[in-house]
C-alpha cells in the first residue's frame, strides 16, 4: 500500500501508524451530561467495508497526522490530507 503524504510524497505503508475512524470529534464539554458523547468518542467506531476516512500518522516520516480516504476492501487509497486541513473542510474530506 502506498500513501501520498502531502509533505513527503508517496511512501509505503510501513512508515505509517493507523488510528481508525477519523469521523470522531472530541466533545467540548466536561459536564457529566456529556458522558454519552464521550463514550461514543472514545469507544465507538465507524468500521465500514468500503470507503473510509481514517487517521494515519506518518510516524516513520514527517510525523504529521493525516487523514486518508481508503477502501477497506480493495485497499485503494483515494486521497490524503493533513488532519488540520481535514478539520478545516466542513465535514472533512480526504
Amino acid at each position, binding site marked *: *500500500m502506498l500513501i501520498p503524504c502531502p509533505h513527503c510524497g508517496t511512501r*509505503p505503508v510501513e512508515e505509517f501508524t493507523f488510528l481508525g475512524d477519523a469521523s470522531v470529534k472530541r466533545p467540548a464539554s466536561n459536564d457529566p451530561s456529556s458522558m454519552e458523547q464521550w*463514550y461514543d468518542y472514545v469507544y465507538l467506531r465507524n468500521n465500514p467495508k468500503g470507503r473510509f476516512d481514517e487517521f494515519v500518522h506518518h510516524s516513520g516520516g514527517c510525523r504529521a497526522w493525516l487523514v486518508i480516504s481508503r477502501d477497506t476492501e*480493495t485497499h485503494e487509497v483515494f486521497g490524503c490530507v*493533513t488532519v*488540520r486541513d481535514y478539520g478545516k473542510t466542513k465535514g472533512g474530506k480526504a
Partner: protein
Amino acid sequence: MTSYRLSSGGLIDRTASLNFKFDGKSFTGHPGDTLASALIANGVHLMGRSFKYHRPRGVITAGAAEPNALVELREGGRKEANTRATMIELYEGLTAQSQNRWPSLDFDIGAINSLASSMFVAGFYYKTFMWPKSFWEKIYEPIIRKAAGLGTASKEADPDKYEKAYAHCDLLVIGSGPTGLMAALTAGRSGARVILADESARLGGSLLNEREEIDGDSGIAWADGVIAELGSMPNVTLMPRTTVFGWYDGNIFGAAERVNDHVIAPSPYEPRQRYWRIIAKKAVLAAGAEERPVAFGGNDIPGVMLASAMRTYANRYAAAAGKSVVVFTNNDSGYRTARDMKAHGVHVEAIVDSRSESKADAGGVPVLRGRRIADVGGKKLAAGIELDDHTHIGCDAVAMSGGWSPIVNLACHRGGRPAWNDQILGFVPPDTGKDFIVAGAAAGRMLLSECLADGARAGTLKGKAPATPKCRDEAFAIAPLWWVKESHGKAFIDYQNDSTAKDLPLAAREGYRDIELAKRYTTTGMATDQGKLGNVNAIAILAEATGKSMEQVGTTTFRPYYTPVSFGAFAGPFHGHHFQPVRKTPLHDWADELGAVFVETGLWMRSSWFPLEGEDWLAAASREVVATRERVGICDVSTLGKIDVQGKDAGAFLDKLYCNTFSTLAVGRARYGLMLREDGIVYDDGTTSRLADDHYVMTTTTANAAKVMAQMEFAHQALFPELDVTYVTVTEQWAQMAVAGPKARATLQKIVDGLEMNDQSVPYMAALEVTVLNGVPARLFRLSFSGEHAYELAVPADYGNMVARAVMQAGDEFGIVPYGVEALSIMRIEKGHVAGGELNGTTTAADLGLGKMMSSKKDYIGRMMAQRPGLTDPNRQCVVGIRPVDPQDRIRSGSHILKDGDRPSMAADQGYVCSVAWSPMLNMWIGLALIANGRARHGEVVQVWDGLRGHKVMGEICDPVHFDKENKRLHA
C-alpha cells in the same frame, strides 16, 4: 548405466564438466545443466518419493512447478529441504539427497502405506484414531507426523547472509519469454525505467526450450540479440534468477533474487539471496503458461512427464528422457514433442491423441486418434503403456499434455478471480486494472505472433505499439480430457500430496462440494507446487461430480508465494544480534569502563549493575544502594525521553496532556506530572521543568518516550490545533546522570562552575542552567527518584563520558559508586515510587495513590472517562506495600494475594505483587502490590501465594513507602 546425453545440441557447455553427488553417488554434468537434467542425462529417473504412499517418483516438469523431484540440497547449516531439482543450476561439488524415504530411495519401507492405500482415502483421518482417547497424542499422531512432511530441515544456524532492497521503475516486466522481451524492449527503447525479472538463470523463457523461428533466425538467437540490446540501455535493469513472488497493494511486487544459489558458497561480501520490494508505476505479467498432466493410471511413474518438459530436456539440456517414447495429448502441442524427440534421434513409438481428429503435424510418428492411455506399467521406471482399448505399447518414457494453464497467479493475488475460457480450456486472468497488465501466454495467447504483439502493446507506455518481428506460429487446438476413467492404477491429480482423481468425487459425496472444501478435505493443491499442475484437473472432476460448469466451480484462491521463498530472504540481515538496532546512551563507554553489566531496555542498553570481583547482581545492587544512601552514587538516566516544548501556548498544551497543571509552574522549577489516556487510565509520568515562560522540557519514561511523542502530535494536530506550541525530542542531545546521596551536593559542587549550591540556590525541584568543568553547558535539576538528596545533571552528549568520569573523580573522596537500574529499582521500591510494574496500562491515578493530582479545574485528556463507575469503584486494586511477616521470607513478583485462610481460587484472589526488591536498608524482601481496596487494609496479614513456583508466605499489607516515610533524606 547408460548415458541419456544427446550427442549434440542444447545450451550446455560440453567443454567443461561438473562433478556432483546424489544420494552419495558421484556423477558429472555440464554448466547449463540443472540437477534434474544432469540426473536424467546420467540415466537416473527415480528422484523422490511421494508424501502419503511413498511412491517412487521422477521429474514431471522442467521448471518451477515440479512436485516430485524435491531434494535436500547441500549439508550442515546450508542444508535446504524440498529443493526442486529442476531449478537447481548445477555447480561443481553439488551434493543432494533424496528425501521422504527410509532407508533408501530405492528401497523405502514407507511404501508399505501403498498396501493400505485403499483405506487411506481423502479424509480418513477425521473418521478414526479417536479411541481410546489418549492414543491420539501418544501413538497415532507421532506416527502420522513422522510419516508426513517431506525433507528434513537443518537445525544448525545458516552461515549465509541475506539482503533486502527497494527498486522503482516505470515498467516492471515479469518473465523474459517472447512476450516479456518484447515488452521490455519496447519500453526500454522509449527511455522508460524498466526492470525485467525472470526466475530462470538465463533470460529467454520458452524460447530456450523450443525450436522457434523469429525474424528469420532461431528463437534463441533473437532472444540473445534483444537481451544484448536491453543490457546496453542504462535505463533497463535485467534481473535473472529473480522470482517475482507476489503482487501487493500500491503495485508493489515482492521478488526474491537468488544471487548465489548457483555456487557452492557465496563470497563473504555477498548475500545468498536478496529480497526486493519493487515499486512499479506499471507492470506486465508475461509469465507464460504451464502445461497440465492428464489423470490416468500410473501417471506418476518415473519416465512419465509433461510433454513440454521432455522436449525442454532434449532441446535445452540435451538430455533424453528415455530411449523409446510415447506421447499422450489432447492438444496440438504434444506433437511438438514427438517431432523434437525424433529430430534428436530418440525413438517415438506413437502419439496417442484423445481427439478423433487433428491437423497437427506428427512429423511421421504414428498417431493413435481417439485413444487414451489407461495405465502405465512399471514401478521405478515406466515400462510400457496400456490404452483404453487394452492395446499395449512398449516404451520407457511417456510425454503427456493435458493442455495449458495461463500462469495467472500474480494477477489474482489481490483478490481477482480468473475466468474460464472454453476456447483454450484454461482459466484466464481477471481484470487487473490499468497499472498491471497480463500479456502473452499468461493472458491465454497461445500463438507466438500473438505473444510478441501482446508484449509490444504492453511495453508501449505512450503512443502506438511498434511492429513485431515475423515468426512461425504453431497452431493450437485442444479438446477436453481430464481423467481416463478406464484406468486401473491410481491416477494422480496432486502428485506430491498423493491426491487422486477418485478423491474428488468422494469429497463431493460426503458434502465437501465446494472447491475450497474439497481442497481442504483432499489436500489437493496444497503441496509445494500449490496446484499449478493439478488444480484444473481437480476442478473439472469436481465439476462433473457436482453437476456444475468449470466457471461455477471456479478456482481456489491464488495466494503468494508464486514459488516458495526462503525465510532468510524475508529476514534479510535483521536477525541474530542485528534483529533490532542497538541504542547506546552517551554514558555507555563510561559505564563499560567501570564493568557495567548491560540490560536490554526496549532498544536501549542500560547499565544494570556494576559488579565487583565475585559479586552477583544482588550483591552488587545491594552494595550500590547502601553506598548511595550512605554516601553518594551516580546513575545513567539518559534514556528518559526528553521533549523540548516551546511556544506561547506551551503551558496550556501541557495542561491538556497532563492531569495536573503546568501553566502555573514557576520558571526555574520542575514538577512531577501524570498523563492519562483518553480512556482515563494512566499513560505515563515524569517531571517537566519550565526553563522560560514559553519553554518547557518534559521527561517521559524510557519505555513510553515514542508513544508520548505520538500522543502529543495527535493532541496538537488533531485536537487542539489552535495552540501555538512546538515540540521536538531532544532525548539524544543530553547525557543525563542522577547523582544521589548525602554527599551528592558536595560532589557536584566540585564540578559546577561558579555556583554555591545550597537549599536556596538549588532548592528541591529546582531546574537551572549552569556550566560545569569550566564551561560545559549543563542543566541541573534537583530531583529524586531514590528518595535521597539528589540531582540530575544533563550535559551535551558528546561530553557525557568525560563529565561522568569527572563526577566519579569529584566523588572519590566521599566513596562514590556508580549504580545501575537494579539499584535504582530497589531504591524506588523502598520509597514506594510507582514505575513500569504499576503503570501497566490498567491502573488509574487513584489506583496509584495519585488521585489528588487530577485537576478538577480544567479539561485534559482522560478526565471524563476516568469518572466511569468501573474506574472509581472503591474495590479496585490499588497500590500498597507488601512485606513478609517473617523477615526471613522471600516475596516474589507475580505472586497473588489471598486472604489469610482462603483457598486459592479466582474468587478469592485479592490482587498481586507487581514489584519486589531485596532491601539492603531493611534487610528483607519488600514489594509493591495491587490489592483490592488495599489502602484500607494496611496491617492486614495475607497469603502471598506463588503456586507457580511452589511458594507461599504470609505477608503484611503496608504503606507503599517502606523506607524514610517522613522524607527526611530528601531534604537532608
